[in-house]
């Protein structure tokens, strides 16, 4: 368990450091969402299932949708119908 | 069975939340405006009753939010100081809305006006809880409510520079609440409670035993800095001039008169109730507050002198006035805290008056904001001119006006401090600097420019703008009354504050 925990913690740091370094905003957002998913797993390992469910639904799902919609509005998504 | 008046703080909070929700139902600008005014009036009256009861009986009480007594449930705590602050806050909120009403309906699109009053009502709820709270995490949640409502009020005017000012304000505020939250987390990890009284006991024990000394200091520092950023403490004030200067008149008045004060009141509660002034002095946080306050007093004034845009000048002057408050807190004595509380009241009365008058003067000058274009505008609306003059003189510190009394008490409090000379000199220097930008502003609005220039300005003024604005007149008169009240009958008010600080 501890090994998995440490891997996840390292993953958190890598994702957090990588997210803002990406050139394209789309990649930034996707890496950030990966960060959120890792966090949700970590919370279920910390014996807080309530947090895991909420993080998965709100932190990943809803924030993800909002980020993507914003990217679409600021024309940072390649291949949308505007272009 | 507790006496009924102990329910009043909770009823006030409840009224403001319900009014906020109702405003979203009504959606009509004028009706929600009246609702917000009625709400402020009700809260002011109820809090005044509470103040009377608490002051005559000389008590403070803890009110558990629910049936679980402390330390298991949420709680709020009210004493004379809290009741006094809330009374003044509610009055100032109502008067700011009244005084800036005309430009409010001019600046904001009709379909968004209802939402604006949702913000003001919930902002009031946030401020009430920040004043009354007896629980750290409740404080955090309502800090966020205040932040979102305040940002929404800044951007309500919906011009480009406004949006940019809002996003800068938002990020600085989020930094502040983030630091507050991590400080709270560290404190929770070593002390283990969230409710203030058990937390204070735990902190006192830790301080005495010397356990976890470093986390304790760092968490105190983080919370102070977090609230300081939100309260525009000196090096973190860069967001303030744009946010306060660019917003619509009522928003500027409420933001600089009340929102900044809400965070500072929470800071005062933490300092006196949780950490204790002695611990603050011991770990050196007091001295940092004092230094930053003194620097703020000077640099805020210097920045205000450079401004030509009247509202931004007032906003920069807020930085200087907030510097006074932090300086008083940094003295680390009860006298300093009392003077700081009094200055909170004075500034809450003066700055909204100045903003409302400046807004009115710019309305009668064709919505220009630079001092050059406001020349002679006081003759177009004498009430606004007089109000601006009274507010500015009070900020400078002329006797009979509120500002004088607070400077007097700051100086008195400084006499006991080891840094007496520096503090007194800075107060003197800051007074001179205040005069250096307020006096020219007063002269600018009272001096008639050449006739051709007046005609040029009058071309841009719409006739309906120069009509007598009754609600503004009432608000300005009430604000001036409040300032004279604070300047002349200050003894009973200071007695209430002293009793309140003792009963914190």
């Amino acid at each position, binding site marked *: 368990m501890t090994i998995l925990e440490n891997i996840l*913690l390292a993953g*958190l*740091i890598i994702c*957090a*450091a990588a*997210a*803002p370094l990406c050139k394209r*905003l789309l990649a*930034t*957002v996707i890496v*950030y969402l990966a*960060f*959120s998913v890792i*966090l949700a797993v*970590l*919370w279920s390992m*910390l*014996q*807080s*299932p*309530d*947090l895991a469910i*909420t*993080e998965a639904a*709100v*932190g990943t799902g*809803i*924030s993800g949708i*909002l*980020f993507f919609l*914003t*990217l679409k*509005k*600021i024309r*940072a998504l390649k291949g949308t119908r505007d272009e | 069975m507790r006496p009924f008046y102990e329910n009043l703080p909770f009823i006030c909070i409840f009224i403001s939340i319900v009014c906020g929700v109702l405003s979203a139902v009504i959606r009509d600008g004028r009706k929600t405006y009246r609702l917000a005014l009625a709400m402020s009036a009700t809260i002011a009256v109820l809090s005044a009753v509470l103040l009377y009861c608490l002051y005559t009986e000389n008590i403070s009480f803890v009110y558990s939010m629910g049936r679980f007594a402390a330390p298991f449930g949420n709680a709020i705590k009210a004493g004379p100081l809290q009741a006094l602050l809330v009374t003044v806050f509610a009055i100032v909120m109502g008067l700011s809305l009244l005084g800036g009403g005309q430009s409010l309906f001019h600046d904001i699109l009709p379909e968004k006006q209802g939402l604006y009053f949702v913000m003001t009502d919930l902002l009031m709820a946030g401020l009430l809880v920040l004043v009354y709270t007896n629980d750290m995490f409740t404080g*955090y*949640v309502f800090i*966020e409510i205040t932040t*979102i409502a305040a*940002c*929404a009020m800044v*951007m309500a005017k919906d011009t*480009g*520079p406004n*949006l*940019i000012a809002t*996003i800068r304000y*938002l*990020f600085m505020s*989020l*930094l502040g609440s*983030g630091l507050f*939250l*991590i400080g709270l*987390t560290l404190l*929770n*990890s070593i002390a283990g409670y*969230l409710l203030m009284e058990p937390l204070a006991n735990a902190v006192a024990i830790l301080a005495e035993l010397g356990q976890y000394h470093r986390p304790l200091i760092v968490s105190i520092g983080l919370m102070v800095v977090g609230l300081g950023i939100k309260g525009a403490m000196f090096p973190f004030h860069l967001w303030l001039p744009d946010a306060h200067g660019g917003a619509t008149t009522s928003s500027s008045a409420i933001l600089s008169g009340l929102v900044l004060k809400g965070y500072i009141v929470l800071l005062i509660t933490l300092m006196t109730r949780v950490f204790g002034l002695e611990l603050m002095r011991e770990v050196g946080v007091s001295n940092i507050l004092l230094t930053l306050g003194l620097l703020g007093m000077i640099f805020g004034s210097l920045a205000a002198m450079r401004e030509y*845009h009247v509202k931004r000048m007032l906003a920069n002057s807020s930085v200087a006035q907030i510097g006074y408050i932090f300086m008083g807190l940094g003295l680390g004595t009860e006298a300093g805290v009392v003077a700081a509380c009094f200055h909170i009241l004075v500034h809450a009365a003066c700055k909204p008056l100045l903003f409302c008058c400046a807004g009115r003067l710019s309305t009668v000058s064709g919505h220009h904001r*630079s001092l050059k274009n406001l020349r002679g505008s006081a003759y177009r609306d004498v009430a606004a001119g007089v109000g601006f003059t009274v507010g500015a003189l009070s900020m400078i510190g002329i006797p009979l006006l509120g500002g004088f009394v607070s400077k007097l008490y700051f100086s008195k409090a400084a006499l006991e401090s080891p840094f007496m000379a520096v503090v007194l000199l800075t107060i003197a220097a800051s007074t001179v600097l205040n005069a250096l930008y307020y006096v020219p502003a007063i002269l600018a609005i009272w001096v008639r420019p050449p006739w051709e220039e007046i005609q040029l300005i009058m071309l841009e003024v719409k006739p309906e703008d120069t009509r007598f604005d009754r609600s503004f007149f009432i608000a300005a008169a009430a604000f001036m009354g409040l300032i004279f009240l604070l300047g002349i009958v200050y003894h009973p008010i200071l007695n209430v504050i002293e009793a309140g600080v003792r009963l914190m």
Partner: protein
Amino acid sequence: MLEAIVQNRFAVVAVILFGIGLLNMMLQQNLMKKVIGFSIMDSAVFLLLASLGYIEGHGAPIIDEGSVNASLYINPIPSGLVLTGIVVSVSVTAFSLALIQRIYQRYGTIELHELLERAKKEED
């Protein structure tokens, strides 16, 4: 020193994440990246807070019928606080994203220094 780091690994990771988030929020010029920096910063604080409540070998705080024994479960307080915090943080994120959309609509860019220059020009 090293032992302390290993023992408090959650707290140490939380501080590192907090630092990454803070630096991004303060120094990035792109508003979207600022928002992501803020989200990372908040998540880091929540990680620190949630790790306070964990007790090794104890289970999730869902009480079994008949075994009401506090030494079987982890501390529920931090979980509850974090739950509140996550929702607050998402609301703030939504608000700032909406602001970014409006700013882009008006200025066509979300780089802060360009925006500041444009705003200065537009004033008065």
